[in-house]
């Protein structure tokens, strides 16, 4: 590892050179000015693979300042391997303070989740986006989808959602559930579970989305209207869980299912590790958890 650290010394603050950061910031500003619109940007080749957060990393690198406090999560957790890897990348290249506490962070880079704690006005949430185009699986051609967005022609999407209902009785999208931003652009919220969709609406924090491989940046400015697509007779419904978190007893958080044995044993625990820890420190105990003081020993 020491060799890697030495190699980083020759690089600029937060890895990217200042010209590249300016180019990315211009794209971000445009994205903020046109909420939900996908702005093409000259995505760079990063030292981690495409599909592993290169878009989010570039956005974070472009907005990070020396006084920022960075949190990185993947699947809601700070300790998943790729979150650890990206956090280490910025520790090495920017030397910024990092944290696992949602409240303490000024920049939060995420893959697949929005933290449970309500975000604040001084915070920026940076999403890693694999496929930014919500219409991609209905129309594979970029030339076509850009035209559809320009004309706000979203009939295809509504037909797709209707067909789901006709076939399954439900809209069969459980993550990357499409939203309408500021009454204009249909946007892919990245593969967050639809459970998280309501958190995007009227959010105090700035939300930035970076897709490195597809070379797109888009944004939801603070306090913007974000509506999950639905029908009057089939209103949008967030995923609900039938049991509380086994460790902290939370009933309002998104849960991961953990297989505990090969006899069908299952337990459900908070996907947001910081949320779960905070609750346990506050004295909440789930049916399989134990009080924090004892667990610490």
């Amino acid at each position, binding site marked *: 590892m020491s060799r890697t650290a030495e190699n980083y010394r020759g690089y600029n603050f937060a890895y990217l050179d200042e010209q590249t950061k300016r180019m990315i910031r211009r794209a971000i500003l445009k994205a903020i000015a046109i909420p939900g619109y996908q702005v093409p940007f000259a995505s760079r080749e*990063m*030292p981690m693979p*495409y599909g592993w957060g290169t878009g989010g990393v570039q956005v974070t690198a472009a907005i990070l300042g020396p006084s920022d406090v960075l949190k990185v999560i*993947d699947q809601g957790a700070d300790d998943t391997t790729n979150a650890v890897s990206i956090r*280490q990348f910025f520790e090495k290249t920017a030397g910024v303070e990092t944290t696992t506490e949602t409240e303490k962070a000024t920049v939060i880079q995420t893959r697949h989740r929005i933290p449970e704690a309500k975000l604040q006005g001084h915070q920026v949430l940076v999403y890693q986006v694999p496929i930014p185009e919500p219409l991609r699986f209905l129309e594979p051609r970029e*030339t076509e989808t850009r035209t559809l967005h320009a004309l706000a022609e979203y009939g295809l999407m509504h037909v797709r959602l209707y067909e789901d209902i006709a076939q399954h009785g439900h809209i069969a999208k459980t993550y990357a559930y499409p939203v309408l931003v500021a009454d204009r652009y249909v946007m892919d919220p990245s593969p967050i*579970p639809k459970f998280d969709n309501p958190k995007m609406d009227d959010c105090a924090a700035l939300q930035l989305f970076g897709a490195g491989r597809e070379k797109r940046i888009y944004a939801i400015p603070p306090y913007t209207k974000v509506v999950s697509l639905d029908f009057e007779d089939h209103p949008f419904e967030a995923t609900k869980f039938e049991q509380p978190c086994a460790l902290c007893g939370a009933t309002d958080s998104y849960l991961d299912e*953990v297989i505990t044995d090969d006899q069908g044993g299952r337990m459900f*625990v908070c996907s947001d590790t910081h949320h779960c820890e905070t609750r346990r420190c506050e004295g909440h105990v789930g049916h399989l958890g134990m009080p924090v003081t004892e667990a610490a020993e």
Partner: protein
Amino acid sequence: MYVAVKGGERAIANAHRLVEHERRGDRNVPELGTEQIEQQLSLAVDRVMSEGSLYDRGLAALAIKQARGDLIEAIFLIRAYRTTLPRFGFSVPLDTADMAIRRRISSTYKDLPGGQVLGPTFDYTHRLLDFALAAEGNPAPPVTAPVDTAERFPRVTDLIAQDDLIERNPPENPGQPVGDLTREPLAFPAERDLRLQNLARGDEGFLLALGYSTQRGYGRNHPFVGEIRMGEVEVEFDIPELGLMASLGEVTLTECQMVNQFKGSLTEPAKFTRGYGLSFGHCERRAMSMSLVDRALRADELGEERTSPAQDEEFVLSHSDNIQATGFVEHLKLPHYVDFQAELALLRQMRRELETRASTHPEAAE
């Protein structure tokens, strides 16, 4: 009891140590030097330089060593390094007619000015394992012929063009800005300069398969190898501030010009058309594949119906880059359990609803 996936940091550090250990292999076997790779695995070096878009044999050799011979991984290392380098500008267009030829063949003419030069090629070798090489390879020195430095090797396509039988190269346009898809995101439809740049750094296997598909009828374009040439070309850089042309050195290139079936009309005389392939180093397979795909992608321009994958610009250019492809395919290794959980929840709900319907209306369920 529940054990969270903790300790990611230590696991990552240890995995890095382990992969270094595996790379080294048995320590009783002498370590591979980058000079050995550069000299003795030179075609691997050529491929890494081409798809890595960086002409540096030493770095390519290092990347191959570090990547344990995984060439896509090596290309990735080179790309990630290249992206950090400052960009001074663009070289003067290379003149491949001025190439110091080491190999030059044409399949359209039996003989031609400069002649056919077979050069270092696997063509016509019998692919028999050379068991003696396993012990030691000390080949006889090559046979050489006197070189006539005054000998010119005009490009075959230029010879055909003298009779106006092939489409002209587009006219020079020195003021025209050069597209660079590493600096500006690619938009469609793309100009030919960007298409060629994309193909030049595209995955060899992908180009090969697409080129092959055109030969089997998926966008057929009746190709002849007008010429393949390989050798050294000087790279020059114009510095108007200093009023001089600086030579940056020589690069080895492989160029392939395909001559393809005609375009013409009742009013316009028929002409052969061109497909172009260029590669760093000695990469004939890649230059040939590239020229087939380049020609196929000119379907619109030449008024041909686009019916096949190789003719589909968005399809080809969006999927040719193996660094993008490998990243996105391999990202499926990353945890997806949040989304999987959402799918599980819906699946269970739908099954429950079906069961409820079946128990209340047994006949309806049949």
